């Protein structure tokens, strides 16, 4: 999930490596072959993917926080169970993705440490607060909807472990998306207060969700290598447009108004949205979103307060191994 905005390719360093191997590698990519962990790959390919997959994993884990914020307050037992299961799925995605990243040679601990130190990013969408129950519906509908747009092409990513992880992740995400939309349908069929809650949530999330697809193609600097390596198959603007076209009829069905008075439908049926305020995106990316500090603080707190538990587990495992080898020696 949530990596489109974060893609930054490394400088092309093929010149430093065996040109023959590099050509062979590119030929495999061009032939739509999957690259596997033990295959030769350019250092920059490894680095780009490690960064992208780990950022994706961090996003899943940080993404547990805004939704987790409503687990203890979900309005019915059915909703409570569904939300808890959903957030648990996100955690599973994170674990799965860390495992995929580890196949490239970095440990989960290293990757998590980089995130906690503020050196690695996660999706900015999770730096916005969940204020009402409608935010839970909206996140499922729009945030997961946008994530699916990003992720479906990643199921064909050239790196095998990432592509395979995405197939499973996408199945669960599309379930989450429908679950979120169903919350919205329920709200929009409910009382005036519930409808207003749904509209308010859409108003707050719409523009940040459009920003999830990353900067406009005209200013996006780093897509070339990722495209050539078939990590990325569609541009930011292409995916954003696809998302908007899919979402507008859904909003119409709900009877909600997309907070973009300038939006028009062109002759080809595409919904043309107004200019996005990229200064907000840059501010949130720079750490100045409404929840950046809270999210980092929550992750650091869990990590620090859990240190003694992880130490205990490691100490016990070491003792047990020692006992077993002592027994074996007898």
């Amino acid at each position, binding site marked *: 999930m949530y990596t489109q905005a974060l893609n930054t390719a490394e400088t092309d360093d093929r010149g430093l490596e065996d040109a023959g191997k590099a050509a062979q590698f590119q030929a495999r990519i061009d032939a739509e072959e999957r690259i596997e962990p033990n295959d030769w790959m350019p250092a920059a390919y490894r680095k780009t993917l490690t960064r992208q997959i780990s950022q994706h994993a961090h996003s899943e884990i940080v993404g547990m926080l805004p939704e987790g914020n409503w687990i203890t307050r*979900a309005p019915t*037992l059915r909703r409570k169970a569904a939300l808890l299961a959903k957030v648990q799925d996100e955690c599973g995605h994170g674990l799965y993705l860390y495992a995929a990243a580890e196949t490239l040679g970095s440990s989960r601990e290293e990757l998590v440490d980089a995130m906690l130190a503020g050196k690695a990013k996660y999706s900015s969408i999770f730096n916005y607060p969940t204020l009402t129950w409608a935010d839970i519906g909206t996140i499922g509908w729009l945030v997961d909807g946008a994530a699916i747009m990003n992720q479906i092409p990643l199921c064909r990513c050239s790196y095998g472990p990432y592509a395979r992880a995405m197939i499973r992740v996408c199945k669960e995400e599309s379930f989450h998306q429908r679950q979120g939309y169903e919350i919205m349908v329920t709200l929009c069929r409910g009382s005036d207060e519930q409808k207003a809650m749904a509209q308010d949530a859409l108003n707050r999330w719409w523009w940040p969700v459009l920003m999830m697809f990353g900067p406009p193609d005209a200013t996006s600097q780093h897509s070339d290598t990722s495209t050539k390596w078939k990590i990325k198959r569609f541009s930011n603007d292409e995916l954003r447009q696809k998302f908007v076209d899919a979402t507008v009829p859904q909003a119409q069905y709900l009877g909600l108004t997309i907070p973009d008075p300038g939006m028009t439908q062109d002759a080809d049926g595409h919904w043309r949205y107004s200019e996005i305020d990229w200064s907000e995106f840059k501010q949130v990316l720079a750490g100045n979103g409404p929840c950046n500090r809270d999210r980092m603080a929550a992750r650091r707190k869990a990590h620090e307060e859990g240190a003694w538990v992880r130490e*205990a587990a490691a100490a016990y495992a070491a003792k047990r191994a020692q006992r077993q080898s002592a027994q074996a020696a007898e």
Partner: protein
Amino acid sequence: MAVANIQVSETPLVLYALRRADDALILGHRLSEWCGHAPMLEEDMALSNIALDLIGQARELYSYAAKVEGNDNDEDKLAYLRDVRQYRNLLLVEQPNGDFAQTLVRQFFYSAFADLYWRAMMNSRDATLAAIAAKSEKESAYHLRHASEWIIRLGDGTDESHARAQGAIEHLWAFTGEMFAVDDGERALIHAGIAIDPGSLRGRWLQTLSDVVNEATLVLPQNDWMQQGGRTGRHSEHLGHLLSELQSMQRTFPGLTW
């Protein structure tokens, strides 16, 4: 906006189902508080999973209580529209998460009981309770295994984890007696073969605890004084705060569909 509490006709069978439903919901709710904040991702997953099992058990038991009661109540009304004095859960399950040791010791004490309890309840003459027991027994066996493994790791891990686990055992011990208490209504159900006598499980429960605690190099307290009151609605101060959070939506927006 004040929303009135529902009234529940607590016949012995309704009360019996309600007590077990409240145990499962409150413990499930407590575990769900960890989601996103656990010491490792594997435990975010595991604690959420156990919470989901417990919330599932609660839903079945509430639905059954509502059906037996035969009024207009349902699982959500029973969960969201009773106040602290109407809740019937064990004091043990409402105790705050504290640190990871406290959460796991609470789980261990409860699951060691629930595992035996649900297995025995599979023979209930009440077909619904027997069916709920058959499902819950499988879940509880896993919960107990998970908690036991952690008690051993923490007890036999580092000095710090040992001290925290021992402290949690001592802190929570006084809340375990309530699991084995029986009142007149329950005694009648036991005679009718609908409920089982929890007292008959105490020996095996203690044996499970001793085995695990010994392996963990921990000790069980000698103190046998036990705190009671949850089954009759005399709770600790903690439950009211939990309920105000749990029930906030239904109390703020009464009578809506979500």
